[in-house]
């Protein structure tokens, strides 16, 4: 494996980690506020479809982006309605949202474009194109640092950088602002937050909407940045890998970045090699695909440091009468 191959794999790691990271941070906000969300997958899928559909129709990726984020936030509001307002089961609501998105994207897509659930391929301004950083061409010839700069740091779509910036931003919001303190408190002990005179319902809805926003960006990136158009079920379990990364990161933003990079790396390797020989053993590609899930189960089992979710997660809050 030469240097250029390594750079290429890392480059593809960045791209593949981006949707995971955005969805993972989305789940982070929601679950820190005490709303479990296994509907990340569905929200991403809906956003991916609508962003690609609107971008294809209007030729503007930014209009598509807005539509995608809007779709994702709408689903997030349904989740909020079910789990906050009507105090329903958050897990069941998440399952339903995943199916809703899986079904509606194909039905509407078939009706609009007649391509069996696909959208037309996007090109030009209908896509998020790579941003070339200054001097990337000139510096590319410098050994080691050149390709590193030109391939790995430069040349991604803007949403990749947004995702990376979202990590310190999320950390700052959650751990250095009053809002963040309250949001975390509402996931641990909503009763205390309520006693302090702060609306649990409003805080949780805010968290759910932030979750929708981030999932929307993730979905839009999938269909208009990573790929050039929507295909049926294109999230392909990424929402669940993001969920796995969230547990792996133990609900912390910086660790979420590391977990998503790791899982993105595994996917990049799996895409590139059919099987890997490691110390005499041949690891089949399916093993690489399953590895994020296996690692998550191991983490959940508490054999390698225990993952403890926010204490009030999953429980609807009933105000005292």
């Amino acid at each position: 494996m030469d240097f250029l191959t390594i750079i290429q794999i890392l480059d593809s790691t960045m791209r593949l980690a981006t949707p995971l990271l955005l969805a993972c941070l989305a789940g982070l906000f929601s679950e820190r506020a005490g709303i479990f969300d296994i509907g990340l997958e569905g929200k991403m899928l809906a956003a991916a479809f609508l962003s690609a559909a609107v971008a294809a129709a209007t030729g503007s990726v930014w209009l598509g982006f807005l539509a995608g984020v809007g779709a994702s936030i709408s689903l997030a509001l349904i989740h909020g309605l079910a789990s906050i307002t009507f105090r329903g089961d958050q897990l069941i609501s998440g399952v339903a949202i995943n199916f809703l998105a899986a079904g509606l994207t194909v039905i509407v897509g078939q009706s609009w474009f007649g391509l069996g659930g696909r959208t037309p391929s996007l090109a030009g301004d209908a896509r998020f194109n790579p941003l070339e950083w200054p001097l990337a061409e000139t510096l590319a010839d410098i050994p080691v640092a050149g390709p590193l700069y030109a391939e790995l740091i430069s040349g991604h779509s803007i949403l990749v950088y947004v995702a990376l910036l979202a990590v310190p931003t999320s950390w700052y919001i959650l751990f250095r602002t009053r809002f963040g303190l309250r949001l975390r408190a509402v996931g641990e002990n909503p009763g205390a937050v309520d006693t302090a005179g702060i609306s649990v319902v409003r805080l949780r809805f805010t968290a759910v909407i932030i979750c929708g926003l981030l999932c929307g960006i993730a979905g839009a990136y999938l269909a208009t940045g990573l790929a050039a158009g929507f295909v049926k079920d294109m999230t392909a379990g990424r929402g669940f890998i993001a969920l796995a990364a969230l547990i792996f990161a133990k609900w912390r933003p910086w660790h979420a970045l590391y977990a998503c990079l790791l899982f993105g790396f595994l996917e990049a390797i799996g895409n590139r090699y059919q099987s890997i020989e490691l110390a005499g053993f041949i690891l089949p590609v399916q093993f690489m695909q399953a590895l994020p899930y296996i690692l998550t189960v191991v983490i959940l089992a508490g054999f390698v440091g225990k993952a403890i979710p926010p204490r009030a997660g999953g429980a609807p809050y009933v105000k005292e009468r």
Partner: protein
Amino acid sequence: MDRMPKWADVLLIPLINLLIAFALSGLVILAIGKDPVVALQTMVQGSFGSTNGIGYTLYYTTNFIFTGLAVAIAFHARLFNIGGEGQAALGGLGVALVCLSIQWPHWLIALPAAMVGGAVFGAAWAFIPAYLQAKRGSHIVITTIMFNFIAAALMGYLLVEVIKAPGSMASETSPFPPGASLPTFHEMLAPLGIEFNRNTPANVSFLVALACLVFFWALVWRTRLGYEIRAFGQSESAAIYAGINPVKITVIAMLISGAFAGLMAINNVMGEAERLILNSVEGAGFIGIAVALMGRSHPVGILLAALLFGFLYQGGAELSLWENIPRELVIVIQALVILLTGALDGMVRGPVEKLFAKRKPA
């Protein structure tokens, strides 16, 4: 105590939920420029209008009874098993290994053996999440989701690399021996003088599924184990106080759940495909969630809900064939049913309770 009569709780509320789900789906059909009434006619005609349609409807129903029971038994212990998909896939492996192991002389011998194979493999796949939940407190919903993906990867690997039929292009096992072929409705009903379409996949597994419904009822409401499962589901602390071992009940409930899911394979793998193929479960594990929610985890409800989804599945296939409405419509209806009966239950229940309170002042 009860704010409304029992019939309203078990009949009225699910019916209202179902009506809302259908109404919303009708709007979806309208939105894509089709006629919902024609769509409904096509679905009813396609699923009940001929013995061919009925055969397919009952074939799907059989799958959903098994997966519905799997989710329901876990619900009784207040465990949410989303892993039916993976457990049914592994059940398929168990059934395939049994069917391919020897030249079975007769299906009456092969079927019980295959049932054991499917149930044991399905239960085994549910065991690790169950054990982790009971002993290590890892959330069973997350672990069962993860195990679905792990199962998909494992089955992919096995079917491509290990148990693939030699010389075959497709990722599938060799066909099962003729002795492991289950009688279809056509073969079962012909001696009785009833003509049933010979091409439908409905087979004797349907009767096994019905027997499982009775077994489920007896287990949950007529045995000590069932009592312990329900007590544990109602209140874990009270159950522990009464001397019920939470680890034991969690693991046993999940083992039974996995076994039901695994049993599904006698229908789709042994009865229909007669060999193991990739992605043989086709989402039936997830439909079990909707079936159990709608059927209120009761055998009668599960039978009716499974029939409903069998109808939707077969009707949906006809829709895509004749009306050019993608069969994903069924997934939308399924999503709405899960959302309304499972998560938005309070939305319908509140007003209905108020209505009854008004009519009968306490």
